[in-house]
């Protein structure tokens, strides 16, 4: 059972994250994208998902990551990510509900470079009962 007190909380990433050209190149190579001047549109999941994992598996929240499946995903991209972007990442647990023994978590991730919001994304994560 996930701690319901976590709903509405926003967690700030502990560190600033710098996007490297190597990371963009590796991600682009998997999907056959040759233009690596900007990151592919789903690249930011690399940052958001690992932040969700570190937040949601904390004992006070208590998600079992091995039982997790991805329900849906949405990106709003204000400008493409480029190498050298330095992101402050904040993650917010928006809703939490139980359906048929599964726990369904809606989380939002905002990536800011300085004061500029670059990407917002929303994920529904399902913890299978």
């Amino acid at each position, binding site marked *: 059972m996930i701690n319901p007190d976590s709903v509405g909380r926003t967690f700030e990433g502990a560190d600033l994250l710098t996007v490297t050209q190597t*990371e963009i190149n*590796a*991600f682009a*190579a*998997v*999907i*056959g*994208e040759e*233009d690596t001047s*900007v*990151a*592919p*549109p*789903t690249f930011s*999941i*690399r940052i958001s*998902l*690992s932040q969700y994992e570190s937040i949601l598996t904390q004992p006070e929240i208590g998600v079992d*990551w*091995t*039982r*997790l*499946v*991805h*329900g*849906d*995903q*949405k*990106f*709003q*991209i204000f*400008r*493409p990510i480029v190498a050298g972007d330095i992101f402050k990442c904040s993650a917010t647990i928006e809703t939490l509900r139980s359906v048929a023994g599964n726990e369904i978590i809606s989380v939002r991730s905002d990536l800011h470079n300085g004061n500029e919001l670059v990407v917002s994304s929303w994920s529904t994560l399902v913890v*299978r009962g």
Partner: protein
Amino acid sequence: MIEVGDVIPARIFDVDRALLKAYADASGDQNPIHQSEEVAISVGLPNVIAHGMLTMALVGKFVTDWAGGSAKVKEFSARFIKPVIVPAGEKVDLTVGATVVEIEGNRIKLDLVATSGGVKVLGMAKAVVVK
């Protein structure tokens, strides 16, 4: 001239275990259900499945190729309704197509369809691009 109702020709991406491993390394998502048959079956899956986000990344490639580059995508969303099942030693298809459903100035909204083995794997898949 792009018009509402235009159909973008479908394209097939090959998906195999090597691609899943490459995506795991590039994305950092090392969940073993995408690499180990034993783990996948132990949690009730039929076999190793592709990362939903790999499917979405490939659909994204289809969109950006049509739109003229990664920088053109403003919104992108999908629901993961069925897994792409990837047995060892096999190449399975991810077949992607799209229809133009809305045009507002230079913003074009696409409805996307993605199937594997004839089974629809994404629901409510949409992208907004500028072109």
